[in-house]
């Protein structure tokens, strides 16, 4: 599979008047087209920063992010759904199109279709507060998908959900991403979630974060949690995170 995204020795230094903090140190990896790659690491290690750097919202102190497809669009999904309470679900889903001034009839039809396909057809005119946590997260994903991104960046998108919902929604969202044939970089601190949904898992060390290793997960997505090898992958990553602590 061809690479779509390459990170080349990314470092990030945070400055404040008292001191400077090296958050990320010399991180390089690449993401293949259509792949779902998780980034896992101890909390506060700079996973989210790395995602912000990939998205271009934050500039790295040194190093380079290369997107290997011309005019590739990126979609960002945050920890909370951040659906706007003053907009309906449909209006929320159209936010990105609105900002990019791409509210063409064709794109709007695409949003309608996504909402229908992923079970929100009856809630287009509802306010976010009327939806369950899982549905809201799906609506947030559709808002991201509406602008037809080539690469999805997900920053712990399920951390605000309770455990049961989280299990279901993470599988659901991973399924949608595969169905839509998107590439995704997914930040999490939950090992089992990473193993269950991804093709590869990149493990970061604690601050200053470096890339410890990348695990290839050879499990069939959807039923990964039932596979006997699940534990092996889990334990390997668990050990590595433990060693680095």
């Amino acid at each position, binding site marked *: 599979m061809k690479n779509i995204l390459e990170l080349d020795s990314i470092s990030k230094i945070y400055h404040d008047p008292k001191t400077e903090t090296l958050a990320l140190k010399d991180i390089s990896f690449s993401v293949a087209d259509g792949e779902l790659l998780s980034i896992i690491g101890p909390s506060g290690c700079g996973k989210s920063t790395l995602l912000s750097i990939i998205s271009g919202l934050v500039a790295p102190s040194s190093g380079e992010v290369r997107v290997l497809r011309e005019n590739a669009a990126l979609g960002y999904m945050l920890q909370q759904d951040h659906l706007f309470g*003053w907009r309906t679900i449909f209006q929320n889903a159209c*936010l*990105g199109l609105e*900002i990019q001034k791409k509210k063409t009839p064709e794109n709007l039809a695409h949003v309608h279709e996504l909402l229908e396909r992923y079970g929100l057809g009856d809630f287009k005119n509802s306010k976010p507060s009327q939806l369950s946590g899982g549905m809201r997260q799906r609506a947030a994903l559709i808002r991201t998908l509406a602008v037809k991104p080539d690469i999805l960046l997900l920053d712990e998108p399920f951390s605000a959900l309770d455990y049961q919902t989280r299990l279901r929604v993470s599988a659901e969202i991973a399924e949608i991403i595969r169905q839509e044939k998107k590439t995704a970089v997914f930040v999490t601190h939950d090992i089992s979630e990473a193993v269950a949904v991804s093709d590869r898992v990149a493990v970061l060390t604690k601050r200053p974060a470096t890339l410890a290793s990348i695990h290839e997960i050879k499990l069939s997505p959807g039923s990964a949690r039932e596979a006997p090898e699940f534990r092996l992958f889990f334990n390997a990553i668990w050990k590595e995170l433990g060693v680095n602590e």
Partner: protein
Amino acid sequence: MSNPSPEHLEYLKKAKLGKLLVLASQALILAAFFGAWELAARLKLIDAFIFSQPTRIINAAVSLAASGSLAKHIGATLWESVLGFVLSTVIGTLMAMLLWWNDFLKKTLNPYLVVLNSLPKTALAPIIIVWIGNNVKSVIFTAVMTSVIVTILTVLTGFMEVSKDKIKLVEAFGGTKRQVLSKVVLPASIPAIVNALEINIGLSFVGVMVGEFLVAKSGLGYLIIYGSQILKMDWVMLSIIILCALAAILHQLVVLFEKRIINQ
């Protein structure tokens, strides 16, 4: 809830009764106050010439209303107050937008805003009159001055409290600063703006009263000052009661407006 249980009916009954009791007590306080006032005046416990009395106030209201001057005074005060509070809300919100936009400006002006906010703005009224003149413009200007600084600070605080992640979301879609303002910061700050509106009603009345005390030829503030000078205490008391009513009505309007906005 097609078939409420007896317990639920009992609960509803209690809740209703409690509400009625509060309302009745509120009405009773009002009635007792005016009743005691009237009685004290009739029994000559207080001098009705100085303290006035409810029946005299009603008579004053009737005769002032008949000559048409009551409507004129109420109209003047109402117009000045509403204009004052709408203007200061609009100007204050625009200023807050400017300061939100330009962080350097915000940091630079911050100490001035803090000092101006603590300054009793009524102290500026005489200066305003000297500068702008002995007219209605001065009254409205005083009203705006009293509430515009606190509006800037309230709305700006609202702007700054908008979740960073919501802003990040718009930026991740490639949104410009202008879009961050129009798509997130402003709509998310509507409660803060409505809150400022509520504060501004009271402050705007303060400004209008001070302005009218000093310059006006009409308005309830004028009526209060003029009435006290010629010892027509009935006029003074009447004006104050009308002011209470106006404040209550405007406050209620903002609350209704707020409910509509929040429910949207």
